């Protein structure tokens, strides 16, 4: 889970979840705490989904 996807691709990650921002990849301080946690949960669920998906090459899970 990383914000700068081109670097993740360059260094060879296989399952990549794009995140929010470098200092807060899994959060957004401008949201209220409940909405921020919901955002984080959404990203983690994407990661769990990626882990349950077979891939044959480097894959960016950018969709919903």
């Amino acid at each position, binding site marked *: 889970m990383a*914000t*700068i*996807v*081109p*670097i993740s691709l*360059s*260094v060879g990650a296989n399952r990549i979840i*794009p995140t*929010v*921002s*470098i*200092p807060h990849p899994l959060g957004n301080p401008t949201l209220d705490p409940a909405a921020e946690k919901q955002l984080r949960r959404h990203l983690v669920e994407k990661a769990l989904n990626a882990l349950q998906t077979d891939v044959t090459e480097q894959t960016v899970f950018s969709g919903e």
Partner: protein
Amino acid sequence: MKLELHRIRISKLEFGSSTGVRNGVLTVNKDELEKFLLEDERLAGVSLDVAHPGESVRILPVKDAVEPRCKLSEGNEVFPGFIGDVDPVGEGKTLVLEGMAVLTTGRLVAPQEGIVDMSGPGAEYTPFSQTCNLVVVLEPSEEVKLHEAESVCRIAGLKAAHYLASRCKEAVLSQAVAADTVETFDAPALTEAMHAYPNLPKVAYIYMLQSQGLLHDTYVYGVDAKKILPTLISPTETMDGAIISGNCVSACDKNSTYVHQNNPVIKQLYARHGKELNFVGVIITNENVTLADKKRSSSYAVKLARMLGVEACVISEEGFGNPDADLVMNCWKAERAGIKTVLVTDEYAGRDGSSQSLADSCPEGNACVTAGNANMMITLPPMEKVIGDAPKADIIAGGFFGSLREDGSMEVEIQAILGATNELGFTRLGAYTI
């Protein structure tokens, strides 16, 4: 736009009853300058010291270096948005106190401030061992929060630099003191620039500014660079301090205000201008923390280069790690638009030099100049005098815990030394593969 730089060469600093320059000696009224800086209520304490090349002096943690400048001509003052108003600079006449710098130091505002040794092995790595330095030790008030403390220190450095030059201005205007050199830089209107030297290749400079967030920032006319779209700036504006460092990232490759004022890429492009190339513009861009920003800024910067119709450009980076992604995007987008590039960066190849030096890569980056491996270790012997706060070296990036030994010597990566691997190509340091 035409700018004349009137340079007075400073070879010595001393404290005295009145601030002014005579025979290359800058006398500083310590009381007056300290009081002036203390007008900022957010400062609890200010003290001044001087350090000269060759002395057994270590200064740390250094936040910024600034070259004293002020306007000799009418119009807006230098450091627009901070000292000067937000109107344009880069024209007329500017007084420069050359061969010296104001170094701001004091309580750490982030764990990444820099070391300046005035002699010994560390001195070879910092450009500021070659300048006479007025060191401004700053102590922000207890209640001032971290981010504001950075701003307080940043502005104090600019005020001190402007104060010193301003106190020499009358003597120059009244011709009591003559500038040692006067150099004129011309940045003509695009209509003229485009038709000048039809047989020479048009070249631009893509100037990347650190803008990762609070404490890792650069200001342009007072605007936080993370909030800009890439834009054109006249090279003469940079000489009047239009670009200011608010950057507390690793000391080796953050661009201090001094190197923005004396950008060596701009200097070298001017040196070849009209002879081997036609230097038509400087494009500033940023290094933000989201992917969308990185994509937008790189595309926009390259678009500006295309609008200028340049054949080639130099691209300089600031910092390392995720800014490598900005550098790489600027590179391949320019190359694929038919614009040839040379990249200026530095390296993080590990202490043994055997790891990959950059975090990102593209095949188009086939012309790269490097300012050296920042992870290289160096032992800095003890100095007779330390200005600042030696124990802070423990948390300087590139040092490691326990790096300060009992005898006062330090073992650190050159990453901890101010300007050691400057990615504007300010110094002669580089690296090669064995």
